[in-house]
């Protein structure tokens, strides 16, 4: 939901909450004041009539028939309460209930004779006042909502302009390039921009540092490794005993492993730094075939039967080096973790790549094997970075990868066009319904 809409909704919500309260206050005050004014007026009228009576005017002269006055001689004593107000609704002559009859009875003792002087008048009924207020409030609310909806949009264009620019800059942010945030008149945005400026600058600096480090580490480690490897090679050509040969062999293994780890870690750092970004599409099917060809002899030696289903003309937006590494790792794993006389099934379509292979069942949840240095067999010779590299390549390229073990088969699947989260959620719900039924 847009910020503007949220503000609008809250504002309208507050209005809807407040309006009945104000309407009630309005109604209450209006009615009270109308009553009060009318009662005061009628009371004064009664008093004036009483004056005239006391001056000796005849009752008929004061309150002839047809006026809103009535003078009655009382046979009983004066009541305690000298003024009585009576309000009558639902009058016969007013079928719509728009009026109320307000009657004020005043009791006077004039020359020893108790009189009741009553005067009455029609005032708007409570129902009438209520309906008028409701009407007004309704239109008022409608007008406010309408105006708010329009103006808040126009105003937000101006006020949120800075925020929008900032969002645009962040969306296009890449750690490789420094960005400049514009200044804003709004304090919050100013704070946000200056915070983001600091953060992005720091990210760029860190990136440069990490890039430099990974390059240096790679170079600085490769050289001593090269020295070590070459010296061991030279040493192994001298006259040595079997015992020493074994030691040298172990050293060579260790050097090999070290150099592989170093290379893989450097590669992962490079992938994380997005150093392999591309804009061109490459023929992935060709790379898949090439990598398969590179493993041909080893597949044959392990007597693995390979079934391939590679569609033609598969174009993907991925760096050729990464495509090669992806296939290399997936296929290498499929061969390595396979059994003698096993099978590999390779399916490549424009949508996905699936590598299925036979092998021993995994000893840990398959998804965990994407973590660095996680191996299904902790003491095995492999480095344990292959699947991390696969995952990283997929992340960088916008693919998604999954690993399952089903029907005695390891299934690694790379989706080239992963569905958005909503679609996945929908799909999950679809799947769930028949399961419940």
């Amino acid at each position, binding site marked *: 939901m847009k910020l503007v809409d949220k503000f609008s909704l809250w504002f309208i919500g507050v209005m809807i909450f407040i309006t009945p309260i104000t309407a009630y206050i309005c109604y209450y005050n209006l009615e009270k004041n109308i009553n009060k004014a009318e009662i005061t007026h009628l009371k004064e009228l009664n008093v004036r009539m009483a004056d005239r009576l006391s001056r000796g005017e005849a009752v008929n002269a004061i309150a002839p028939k047809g006026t809103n006055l009535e003078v009655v001689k009382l046979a009983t004593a004066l009541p305690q309460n000298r003024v009585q107000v009576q309000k009558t609704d639902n009058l016969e002559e007013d079928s719509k209930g728009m009026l109320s009859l307000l009657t004020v009875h005043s009791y006077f003792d004039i020359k020893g004779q108790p009189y009741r002087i009553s005067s009455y008048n029609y005032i708007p009924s409570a129902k009438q006042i209520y309906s008028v207020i409701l009407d007004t409030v309704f239109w008022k609310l409608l007008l406010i909502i309408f105006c708010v909806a329009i103006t808040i949009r126009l105003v937000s264009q101006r006020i949120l302009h800075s925020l929008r620019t900032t969002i645009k800059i962040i969306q296009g942010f890449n750690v490789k390039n420094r960005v400049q945030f514009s200044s804003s008149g709004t304090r919050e945005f100013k704070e946000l921009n200056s915070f983001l400026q600091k953060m992005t600058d720091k990210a760029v600096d860190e990136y440069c540092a990490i890039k430099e480090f990974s390059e240096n580490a790679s170079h600085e480690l*490769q050289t001593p490794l090269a020295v070590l490897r070459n010296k061991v090679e030279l040493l192994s050509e001298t006259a040595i005993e*079997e015992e020493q040969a074994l030691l*040298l062999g172990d050293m060579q293994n260790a*050097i090999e492993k070290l150099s592989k780890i170093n290379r893989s870690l450097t590669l992962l750092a490079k992938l994380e730094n997005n150093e392999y970004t591309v804009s061109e599409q490459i023929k992935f099917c060709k790379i898949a075939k090439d990598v398969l060809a590179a493993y041909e002899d080893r597949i044959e*030696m392990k007597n693995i039967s390979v079934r391939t289903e590679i569609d033609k003309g598969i174009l993907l937006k991925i760096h050729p080096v990464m495509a090669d590494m992806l296939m290399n790792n997936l296929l290498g794993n499929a*061969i390595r973790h396979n059994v003698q006389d096993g099978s590999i099934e390779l399916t490549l379509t424009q949508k996905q790549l699936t590598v299925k292979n036979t092998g021993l069942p995994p000893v840990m949840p398959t998804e965990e094997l994407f973590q660095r240095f996680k191996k299904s067999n902790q003491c095995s010779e492999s480095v344990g970075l292959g699947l991390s590299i696969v995952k990283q390549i997929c992340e960088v390229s916008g693919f998604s990868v999954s690993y399952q073990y089903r029907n005695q088969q390891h299934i690694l699947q790379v989706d080239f066009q992963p569905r958005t989260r909503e679609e996945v959620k929908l799909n999950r719900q679809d799947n769930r319904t028949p399961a419940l039924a």
Partner: protein
Amino acid sequence: MKVLAVEDSREIAVSIRDFLSREGYICELAYGFEEAREKLALFTYDCILLDIMLPDGNGLELLKFIKKEQIQSSVLILSAKDALDDKISGLEGGADDYITKPFHLPELHARLRAIYRRNRLAGSNMVSFNEITLNTDTLEATVNDIVLDITRKEFELLLYLVVNKNRVLSRQSIAAHLWGDYTDNLANFDFVYQHIKNLRKKISAANGADYIATVYGLGYKFNATSA
């Protein structure tokens, strides 16, 4: 063969010299850009081993210098960076091949020989040893004039062994030679062993001598001196 190794790491440079001098090559060393340029101006070499990162300059600049001065040496780039850019700019700049540190010395030697065959020996494609002859163009191997029925990998293995005869070749170095980047995820030793086994079988089937020996704990060796 006369080789100039331009390499700032003295240990690596000395290893290269030690290894190559046993092949009877003359190997001179230069530890920096200026030193290399001086040597190149004074002497001629068949091949130059060129490190890219030098303390006083870039190896790629030296490559430009070599091409500008029309020095006829072959160039093999040695680099600790396996960055693709370096590889491409090196090969585009006129280098003959590219090898990444940490390399195996027999691998370096094999590449050096390959370049030498191409550039110096007028593109000669024959490598022979006693009764074994290898044609690097047609990938055909003959023993006693009998054509061996060997796979491409077996041919590459045999060539590697023959070029590095009398040397101990570690299983790692053989795996790296045969499969390059496609070795990382595999237990390669079994495969190396099987290739060696098959190769020996095929050579002896053609009445070739059994030159290939297992060196206990280390790897294999092509014994040129054995019967």
